[in-house]
């Protein structure tokens, strides 16, 4: 099925591992118009094909790999691809995004996505070469690390692979492509449950933009803007995401000691500055990305990917660990084992506190981290206490108690931002469709002290901004872009003049005019027939696809995606009560001298549901779904 729109390959591959039947999944241009691609496309496919009783490790749970229309067209920072499935951690819809080389090569092979169902009786790997699909015996690869597996597969292909953690169904196992990782929500465990060790893709096809010349012009301007912006052109290339550690400490949002605190006295030892001064060999980044935020460091004489902020935070301050060398080693080890560093660090932190409080005698203690390499290996093999740690924070809290300090939302462990001094981020974590994720949650912490200085404790405008940012980031992801490209919407003059009266006035107005922000968040697409400054995605998508992509339409696509995912989760039993955070974050002020330093979640949720057009139980209203054209979905 070809497409009239540029950028797409026009075909979605369907593979059933049980029968080894290969076919094409029907995906129409009407669906491309409504769902664009990436995570929203995957949500629609899963919504249409998975009944509410399907369990994450059932052969009926599809593993859906999707790209966006920008992927493979030369658009800056667009080598991303998405993996969606039912999460074994949350039992809800999971989406995990990755920057490796698989998405680009999948399009070269002739496909916009793959839907993999069933279960192979024996370990298998799949080769996709110019639309041709071949099944290979993977018994000799089973048990190998992600690096060993990639080395054993054809060098010219893009690859996604799992490691021992995925094979052994660690609930937060990841999928790896080159050195990049689709880390969150256990997508690797689902791949392992299908006895699928790897998928490779290569080919000779090309994603052709609707207007190649105009697209190239936009890409050039977009790349230049990325290189000139203070965040994507200076801070991220210079320090990587690790550069956030120090500002997070000073803003009291650096998750420390299982989120008991927002500051870590020894933060500098694990900061981006020290990482750069003592360990950085060079910058590295995804193909087609001018930002190059990745770090290359040396571990055991080998040049490997350095840790991102989340890894540093959750394996550092969150465990009261200031040994950066150990974090570098674990980061590499966890990627090789195929395990999410966020959930692994958070689960260990929770286990340490369970032990400290006498709820689970497991031998783990804050600051006592020398043996954690062995613990991670035990988790991957599901041996000893590793078997229980492999189930994640929520499952441990159900077994041993401590729910009030079990740091997750909907079963997914939170990222490294402690939200009591960034209440908008708290709302985002609680309402994120995939569970406790900062990016899917709208990443309001960016405005609450990191890039801008909105009052981090006020609830004013936070619900509206969360809705707005969630929708925009959802659409950017669906288009195939790295979410860092959205930072260009932060006016450079505000970042370069943090203390000027103009910046301070704008910061204040964003929270003073709460009703206006709500109106903007709810504004229909037809009232926004323009390109928003800094969000180059709409201009690029217009030239790449040939669709007339205005800011309003882009935002509406994101809103459609968010509601589609929500409806799928609602059908699996999600209610308002699941949009939750542990009591530690909602009831106990981070600083007893500042009573407001906690997340006033209930009042934020009320505003949020209202702006979203959901009822008080968090259920999208019929008229909202009808307006978005998804009233009959699922």
């Amino acid at each position: 099925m070809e497409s009239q729109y540029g950028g797409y390959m026009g075909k979605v591959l369907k593979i059933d591992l049980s029968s080894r039947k290969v076919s094409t999944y029907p995906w129409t241009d009407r669906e491309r118009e409504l769902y664009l691609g990436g995570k929203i496309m995957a949500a629609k496919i899963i919504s249409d094909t998975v009944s509410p009783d399907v369990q994450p490790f059932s052969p009926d749970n599809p593993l859906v790999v999707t790209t966006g229309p920008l992927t493979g067209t030369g658009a800056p920072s667009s080598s991303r691809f998405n993996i969606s499935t039912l999460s074994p951690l949350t039992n809800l819809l999971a989406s995990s995004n990755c920057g490796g080389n698989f998405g680009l090569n999948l399009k070269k092979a002739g496909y916009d996505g793959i839907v993999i169902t069933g279960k192979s009786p024996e370990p298998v790997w799949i080769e996709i070469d110019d639309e041709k699909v071949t099944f290979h015996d993977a018994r000799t690869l089973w048990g190998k690390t992600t690096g060993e597996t990639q080395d054993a597969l054809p060098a010219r292909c893009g690859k996604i692979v799992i490691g021992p953690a995925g094979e052994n169904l660690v609930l937060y196992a990841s999928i790896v492509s080159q050195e990049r990782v689709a880390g969150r929500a256990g997508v690797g465990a689902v791949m392992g449950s299908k006895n699928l060790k790897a998928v490779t893709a290569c080919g000779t096809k090309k994603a052709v933009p609707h207007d190649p010349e105009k697209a190239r012009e936009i890409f050039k301007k977009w790349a230049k803007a990325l290189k000139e912006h203070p965040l994507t052109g200076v801070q991220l290339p210079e320090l990587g995401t690790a550069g956030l550690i120090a500002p997070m400490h000073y803003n009291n949002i650096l998750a420390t000691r299982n989120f008991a605190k927002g500051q870590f006295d020894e933060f500098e030892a694990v900061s981006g500055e020290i990482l750069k001064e003592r360990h950085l060999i060079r910058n590295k980044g995804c193909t087609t990305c001018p930002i190059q935020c990745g770090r290359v460091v040396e571990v055991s004489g080998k040049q490997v990917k350095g840790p991102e902020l989340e890894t540093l935070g959750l394996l550092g301050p969150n465990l009261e660990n200031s040994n950066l060398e150990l974090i570098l080693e674990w980061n590499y080890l966890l990627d090789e084992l195929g395990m999410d560093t966020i959930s692994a660090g958070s689960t260990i932190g929770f286990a340490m506190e369970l032990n400290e409080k006498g709820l689970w005698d497991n031998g783990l203690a804050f600051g006592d981290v020398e043996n954690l390499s062995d613990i991670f290996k035990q988790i991957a093999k599901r041996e000893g206490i590793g078997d229980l740690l492999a189930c994640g924070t929520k499952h441990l809290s159900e077994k041993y108690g401590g729910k009030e300090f079990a740091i997750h939302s909907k079963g997914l462990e939170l990222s490294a931002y402690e939200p009591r001094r960034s209440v908008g981020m708290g709302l985002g974590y609680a309402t994120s469709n995939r569970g406790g994720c900062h990016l899917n949650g709208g990443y309001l912490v960016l405005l609450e002290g990191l890039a801008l200085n909105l009052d981090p404790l006020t609830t004013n405008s936070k619900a509206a901004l969360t809705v707005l940012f969630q929708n925009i980031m959802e659409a950017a992801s669906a288009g195939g872009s790295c979410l860092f490209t959205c930072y260009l919407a932060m006016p450079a003059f505000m970042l370069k003049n943090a203390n000027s009266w103009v910046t301070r006035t704008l910061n204040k107005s964003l929270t003073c005019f709460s009703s206006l922000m709500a109106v903007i968040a709810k504004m229909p697409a037809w009232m926004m027939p323009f390109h928003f400054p800094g969000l180059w995605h709409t201009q690029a998508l217009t030239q790449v696809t040939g669709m007339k992509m205005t800011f309003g339409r882009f935002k509406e696509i994101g809103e459609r995606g968010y509601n589609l995912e929500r409806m799928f989760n609602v059908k699996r039993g999600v209610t308002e009560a699941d949009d939750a955070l542990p009591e530690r974050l909602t009831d106990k002020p981070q600083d007893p001298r500042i009573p407001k330093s906690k997340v006033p979640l209930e009042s934020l949720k009320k505003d949020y549901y209202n702006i979203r057009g959901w009822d008080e139980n968090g259920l999208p209203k019929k008229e909202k779904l009808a307006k978005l054209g998804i009233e009959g979905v699922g």
Partner: protein
Amino acid sequence: MINVRVFGPLREMLGMGSLRVDASEAKTVNELLTVISKMTGLAKPSELRNASIFVNGTNIISLKLFKTAVGPGDEVVLLSPIGGG
């Protein structure tokens, strides 16, 4: 002495992560930035004024901005606006 710590791209610009300034030379943040500029010779006061500045853990936008008083034993931190994931 006033203890000054620098993070982010500014650290690169100044070529140092920390410095100590004699408290008799600066009574306010504004004066402190002028002293730092002279001491390092690598950044103009106007460039330093654009940083996120914390005095004893509090952002100066919640204090008296550049008129915020500084004194012996105070910790002043200069950060750059930042984003990541």
